[in-house]
């Protein structure tokens, strides 16, 4: 029995180690930016929300990602763009993507940008619309204040005339 559990335990540890070896443990963007010189030209893995526009530049494109600790530009092949269906903006949550690539502290080919050149990207959580209900108190406030403003403005204008 003991040997059986031992085998399962070893199996789990092996699976974790292999996973780390293949996929690597992800790092947050804030740490990458803060310790940029340590990670320079190393392979890194990040998980973050795609934000803004996808900026196509010939065979490659720039996509910016934000994981809450910071935002960074990812240089990806054009063929990978289609994987990202949603990007974060007002009332929209972008797809959360896992990026494996080379981190550059000051990428000479990209005007010295701090950025990541992606080798592999995958969408790990699909984003989409994130509309929040409008607060009722705002309707009430606008409904009360607007007529008062109109009356005062009218009086002010009449006196000025």
């Amino acid at each position, binding site marked *: 029995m003991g040997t059986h559990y031992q085998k399962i335990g070893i199996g789990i540890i092996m699976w974790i180690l292999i996973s780390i070896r293949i996929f690597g443990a992800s790092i947050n963007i804030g740490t990458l930016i803060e310790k940029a010189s340590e990670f320079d030209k190393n392979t890194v893995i990040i998980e973050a929300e795609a934000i803004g526009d996808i900026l196509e530049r010939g065979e490659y494109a*720039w996509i910016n990602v934000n994981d809450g600790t910071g935002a960074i530009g990812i240089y990806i092949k054009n063929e990978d763009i289609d994987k990202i269906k949603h990007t974060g903006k*007002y009332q929209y949550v972008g797809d959360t993507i896992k990026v494996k690539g080379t981190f550059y502290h000051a990428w000479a080919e990209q005007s010295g940008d*701090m950025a990541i050149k992606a080798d592999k990207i995958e969408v790990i959580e699909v984003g989409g619309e994130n509309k929040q209900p409008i607060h009722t108190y705002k309707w009430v406030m*606008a409904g009360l*204040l607007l007529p008062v*403003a109109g009356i005062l403005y009218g009086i002010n204008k009449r006196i000025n005339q």
Partner: protein
Amino acid sequence: MKKDDIKIVSYYMGKIVLGVGILLIIPIITAIIFGEYEPFLDFLIAESIFIIIGSGLSLYGKGCIGRFRWRHGLIISALSWLVLMVLSAIPYYLSGCFGSYLDAMFDVMSGFTTTGVVLIQDVDHLSNSLNMWRHLLTFVGGQGMVVLALSCLITKGTGSVYMYVGEAKDEKLLPNVTDTAKAIWSISLIYLIVGTVILTCAGLYIGLSPSNSFLHGLWIFMAAWSTGGFAPQSQNILYYHSTIYETITIVFLVIGSFNFALHHSIWKGNKKEIYKNIEMVSFVTTLFITTTLAIGWFNKLGLYQNSISLFSKVFYQIVSAHTTTGFMNVYTSQFINDWGSMGIIIISIAMLIGGSACSTAGGIKGLRVGVFVKAIIQNMKKLVSTENRVYTEKYHFIQQNILSDEIIKSTLLIIILYILTFSIGVIAAVYYGYDINAAIFESASVTGNVGLTIGITSPSMPTGLKIIYIIIMWIARLEFISAFALIWDTCRGVKKSWEHITKKSA
């Protein structure tokens, strides 16, 4: 302050509040176009409060026109900025993107003073209407709120001159101040159209969607021209990953930092002014020195390996600092980690020098630096000359001017006040436990109304430091005089009230 004085101040402040309130129509329209219903309500509430306060102040002060004095003009200018800070923060706070009302007011003051440091959270998910308001505030702040009110709501009169000067603008482009205010707005609006078109085209070229190309083009122009430094994305200019886009912004932020009198003079056909003007000579010289030093330093560090990287990261940041814009294409932590102490000193000097007088820029200003250098030369000549000779130093600023003792005295006074304010900012940050290098950098940025940050300015910074930075931004932007007039009057008022209370109780 007597009741009549309060009425005069109240009347004109009401007009200024109403004038700035008109601007809220723009984000309201933006919210309608993009179907942003909650921000629409936020702006509607804010508009109502602007009208109520503006009309109320104007009605209270009605009938007290004609006895306008210098003191009124200075107090109106200084107080308007504070009142507008409180009112303009309403849509910010209602948006839910700020940790507190103080944070919202901090960002408004940062926008008005064209500083550009922010406490706003989750910039990447902001509504278009809120972004419109943010950039509009910095655009209007660059020209001046009083200038706006003068050009559309306040009619001609002696009071206009006092308020105009109170907002740290003393150049008269035209004989009449109201016409001068209109000329300033005309210049800015023409550039706004040209700049937006160019940046929209650039945006399309670098891959922005058509609607974002236009919106980003408009906002980035507003931030560049007003030397404000705001941007619609959290990565600021780095978001675009484009040297072309950066280069275009350099052109506009440099032009934006020029004196409106210089713009007007060139528009009138006097193109030679650009070579002779003391501010231009001063700006080019100090920019050359700081850039050379910075590039030399980075060559030693070896971080940026080619000239494009040096241009994009080092030259761009130096220009951004020198024009007091604050656009960033590097991360805040890079200033500490990559630029090092020497880099921080160079960029801090550039931030403190700043742009031109009577422009959208902050800092000590090129004119004063030029006059200061000329004064040193004059004194050195006097020292080495024979006793009988009289030296008269001149400087060119729209016309030939004699360097009088009065000019030297006022120049030195402002420079000393800037350095004092900067020192207070440094001491405050060090008191709150920040590193001295970081404190110097951030204080130079706030005093110069620049907007570059080394990381001190964040929602988690101490409340006391937030208040100190708000005061520094405000005082430095108004170039001390009107702010001091308001503080002096408030202190006198408090003293009198105290005396009155103690007399009564006795």
